[in-house]
């Protein structure tokens, strides 16, 4: 255990922790997306998948606990880093110009906070159906297809999902390339490739995710 505390005490150690937990969350995100994309294979297929997950309480609660732990470590370590960063410059500049720093990099903390809030909303929306008690029957029947269609038929809800996915794209775009930099798997031979791969990977997750509210809104899926 001492090594974990030593790692948490070190600046670069904390960066490793954030990068590793971020990577695990990214893997979950891909799995979650692939599961959801089954909506294009029809209601039966998607609902069968939901039924499969819902009838495995051990699997689902173990995953939820694991994800929660990973997310908490990712967030608390980032908060510690951010507080240290703030403390490192008590007096700011009168004029500060860093035009070369890309927006996705500078906004990583802000995008992360909004994504965190989005995740809370998303769970309340579809998992605990707190906002939509009318989903309860659909959920009990494992009719996730019906829930998705009903949920995304609301333009405001869909708009919020899509905006959150833009922020997720920005977060992943910097997060994925930072993973390689932080673990030292980067140099001039790979830097451009890694930057482009980060855009492609974040872009694919973005397109996959926003496609679902879009097709519901446009009426392709009813």
């Amino acid at each position: 255990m001492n090594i974990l505390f030593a790692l948490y005490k070190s600046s670069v150690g904390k960066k490793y922790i954030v990068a590793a937990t971020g990577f695990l969350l990214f893997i979950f995100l891909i799995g979650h997306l692939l599961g959801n994309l089954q909506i294009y294979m029809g209601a039966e297929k998607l609902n069968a998948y939901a039924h499969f997950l819902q009838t495995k309480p051990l699997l689902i609660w173990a995953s939820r606990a694991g994800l929660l732990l990973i997310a908490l470590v990712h967030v608390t370590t980032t908060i510690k880093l951010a507080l240290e960063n703030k403390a490192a410059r008590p007096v700011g500049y009168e004029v500060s110009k860093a035009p070369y720093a890309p927006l996705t990099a500078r906004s990583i903390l802000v995008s992360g906070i909004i994504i965190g809030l989005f995740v809370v909303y998303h769970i309340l929306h579809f998992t605990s159906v707190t906002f939509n008690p009318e989903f309860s029957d659909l959920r009990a029947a494992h009719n996730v297809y019906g829930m998705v269609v009903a949920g995304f038929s609301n333009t405001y809800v869909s708009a919020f999902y899509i905006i959150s996915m833009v922020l997720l794209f920005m977060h992943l775009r910097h997060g994925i390339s930072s993973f390689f930099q932080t673990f030292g798997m980067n140099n001039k031979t790979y830097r451009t490739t890694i930057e482009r791969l980060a855009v492609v990977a974040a872009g694919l997750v973005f397109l996959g995710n926003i496609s679902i509210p879009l097709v519901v809104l446009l009426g392709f899926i009813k």
Partner: protein
Amino acid sequence: MNLTLKIWRQQNSKAQGEFVEYKVTDVSEDISFLEMLDVLNEDLIERGEDPVAFDSDCREGICGACSIVVNGIPHGHQSGTTVCQLHMRHFDDSQKIVVEPFRAKPFPIIKDLVIDRSAMDRVIQAGGFISVGTNQFAEANAIPVPKDVAESAMDAASCIGCGACVAVCKNASAMLFVAAKVSHLNLLPQGKPEKDRRVTNMIRTMDAEGFGNCTNIGACETACPKGVSLDFIAQMNRDYAKAIIKGQLLNASQTAAQETK
């Protein structure tokens, strides 16, 4: 050319500082930024006022003494130069220029634009050296060093320790400086025996001095007057991971705990 300067004036590290505006007239566009400050100071001395304190040494861009943020950018908007090599021809006539010291908690202000960068010296003392005898110097080619490795080590060694990376970083992180100093020695055969100890001790000292953490933005690389690459930060992160895998992190923190006892 005529300029309006808005300069940070602070009597000492404890005093409350403030911006003061000065007019400088008939500035030659062939002089450097520091020479322009010399012109201002001569004028201030003549008027019986306190001249603006600023650091300078070589005035040829290699010592890293100057620590001035010009209009929001350390060493000014001209890339690849220190402020002593920034010439007035790069400014417009009757421009207003904001002149501030490098700002970071580990860099307390001594006076006006002069800051105390001994935090960086302490990082160097923690591992920025090789432990060898200092008698008769060895024959240069006795230890073979591959050309690309030698070039890379030289690129890292071009860091002049000015602190512009810390000054420009939104987190006041010293990662580029420390990475350059770690990599320059870790790359070479002479530095290899102390590689793991060096990287862990230098990062530990960097943290203890209160520098911020890297968020992989890359502003440091752009502001660096010597163009030290972000690749060295990746290399330091790699060396640190390797040292941790070998158990160095715990060894180092135990040694540190014993030292403080």
